[in-house]
């Protein structure tokens, strides 16, 4: 559709219509129905606007309308334009998606008998692998359900310990045209199993890109998961990530989400504690630059007693950039003896930088320990003066302080290789 008068809705409708004939045989499946319902719902409600409290600071729909109303198809992949050198070298299973399509050449899958990795290369695969079954409330998740054409399903068997990180790399290469990518992943960590998953979002090219990704995670009893996300988006990237995690009794989750740059990045992280004695650690660092926005919406829903959650999100907001933090913690009536801690700290680098932060604790149980704190400020002048009075130039002193501020989150990454890599990226970003 190169029609100038088309709308973003026409663009999506066109994509849906193009996908339908490929679903031969699956048209009667529950997945197909879910997909159809999701798109109908999306059409009815459209994108959330600024009036919608949840998307007040992140008008992704408007941004899409502006950049993608003339979108037709993704350009052919030009490997020479992918900034491979920016990719950390991974030794474990690595699943690569380029512009929303599974890429066999760059991926490396090594078989393990207690680990199953199922790759979906088409919407039909996704339907057959039952990854498209769930209903969707979020408009973007619904859109993803309707349009996703690839993804992976990672199943870690009961009792298995997978030491090497399983890596999912999303590359958008918008050098030769605009790019849209919809991926949908599923992760199931079996009872008493342990695994590490690292997701990298890498963007390049100076054209607009839109990535809409969904990940459903389930942790069975006593499962332990380290889950890392690193966003290295281009200045033209619009990206929304919907991650939903379910935790059963005694499961442990460490999730760290680090984002550098991008035009408009939205992270929806929803964690539901459907078990007792769960441990949930969720940490994030966001450094929007130029006129970019990074928005983190997190939900921790304590439904049963005796669980702990710890949340630390930190933002360094560049000159004209915007950071958003919205952290909801629900402690349901049954969730007695819950410990829930949340903290959000921000440093604004200029008067023109913006942060919108909103901690939201809703507590129905009466025997709980919950705290939340939020700080926002400029760089500490006393600290800066102290370092300068020791002979360190202003710029280096600022960098030292920002690095220390950000490192509190980076230190939560337990995987040494990734932690070193992210620390190096931080250093680079602070230099620029």
């Amino acid at each position, binding site marked *: 559709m190169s029609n100038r008068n088309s709308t973003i809705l026409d663009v999506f409708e066109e994509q849906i219509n193009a996908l339908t004939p490929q679903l031969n045989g699956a048209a009667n499946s529950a997945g197909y129905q879910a997909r159809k319902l999701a798109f109908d719902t999306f059409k009815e409600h459209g994108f959330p606007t600024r009036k919608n409290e949840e998307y007040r600071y992140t008008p992704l729909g408007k941004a899409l309308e502006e950049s993608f109303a003339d979108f037709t198809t993704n350009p052919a992949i030009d490997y020479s334009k992918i900034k491979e050198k920016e990719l950390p070298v991974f030794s474990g299973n690595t699943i690569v998606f380029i512009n929303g399509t599974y890429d066999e050449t760059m991926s490396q899958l090594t078989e393990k008998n207690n680990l199953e990795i199922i790759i979906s290369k088409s919407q039909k695969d996704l339907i057959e692998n039952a990854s498209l079954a769930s209903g969707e409330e979020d408009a973007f998740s619904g859109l993803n359900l309707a349009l996703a054409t690839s993804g992976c399903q990672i199943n870690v068997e009961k009792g298995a310990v997978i030491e090497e990180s399983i890596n999912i790399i999303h590359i958008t290469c918008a050098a030769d045209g605009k790019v849209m990518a919809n991926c949908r992943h599923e992760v199931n960590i079996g009872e008493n199993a342990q695994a590490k998953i690292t997701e990298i979002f890498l963007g390049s090219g100076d054209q607009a890109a839109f990535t809409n990704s969904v990940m459903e995670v389930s942790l069975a009893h006593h499962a332990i998961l380290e889950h890392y996300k690193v966003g290295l988006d281009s200045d033209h990237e619009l990206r929304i990530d919907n991650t939903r995690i379910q935790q059963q009794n005694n499961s442990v989750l460490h999730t760290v989400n680090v984002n550098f740059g991008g035009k408009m990045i939205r992270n929806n992280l929803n964690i539901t504690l459907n078990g007792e004695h769960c441990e949930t650690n969720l940490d994030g660092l966001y450094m929007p630059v130029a006129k970019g926005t990074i928005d983190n919406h997190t939900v921790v829903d304590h439904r049963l007693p005796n669980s702990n959650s710890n949340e630390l999100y930190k933002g360094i907001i560049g000159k004209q950039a915007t950071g958003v933090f919205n952290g909801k913690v629900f402690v349901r009536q049954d969730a007695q003896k819950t410990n829930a801690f949340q903290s959000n700290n921000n440093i604004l680098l200029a008067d023109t930088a913006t942060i919108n932060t909103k901690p939201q604790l809703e507590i129905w149980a009466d025997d709980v320990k919950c705290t939340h704190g939020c700080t926002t400020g400029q760089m*500490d*002048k*006393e*600290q800066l*003066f*102290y*370092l*300068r*009075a*020791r*002979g*360190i*130039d*202003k710029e*280096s*002193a600022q960098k*030292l*302080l920002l*690095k*220390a*501020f950000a*490192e*509190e989150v980076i230190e939560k990454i337990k995987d040494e290789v990734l932690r070193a890599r992210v620390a190096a990226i931080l250093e680079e970003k602070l230099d620029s």
Partner: protein
Amino acid sequence: MLAIKNLKASVEGSEILKGINLEVKPGEVHAIMGPNGSGKSTLASVLAGREEYDVDGGTVTFEGKNLLDLSPEDRARAGIFLAFQYPVEIPGVSTTNFLKASVNQVREYRGLGELDAVEFLKEMKEKMKIVDIDQALLRRSLNEGFSGGEKKRNEIFQMAMLEPKLAILDETDSGLDIDALRIVANGVNALKSKDNATIVITHYQRLLDYIVPDFVHVLYKGKIVKSGTKQLAFELEERGYDWIKEEHPDSTQDQIPA
């Protein structure tokens, strides 16, 4: 080495230093005493280059340079060291962590080569002995959870590492018990030489039992109203500051912030 002439300074529009004159020569120890709010800490801050203070008049020459033209970092590199009255906490930055950058930037300014990691560590170990400070402390976030004594020992340790020409000790004795005071004072004395000088700012005479001054100055309402030898410090200890106040009722009535 240091010549302060008719120095006037204010903060947020209120005048605090009202014409200070002071000359410090290599090898000398000067004590500046005075009641609370007389402007002692302001003088230290202005010399170190704290930006909240406005210099309204006068000159400060340090080794032939106009000190007031230099940034705080250049003052430090040129050889001024301020031991802070209230050393700031910096979460996530350890002493070891910033001091390497600090020492090397100072060395570069002085035309000396950079210290590599091994040389730096060797230097640190040597200087740690001077104030009996533990390496574990130097690896912790700066001043976070440090006791008063640990904070001040760390200040003097940094002084030892940076080898300043002029050290300004801003109420280094405040909050220290006698043992900590002795360690800190011994550290300062160990670093003394005929080429460097020290300005000791204090409210009480006790510190001067350990760091013996060549000159004692009394700062009152933004001016040095009396200068003498260490005898003056004893006199102040005995008689308090009231007689100074009585001798100088002419100064304006307004309260001077600390």
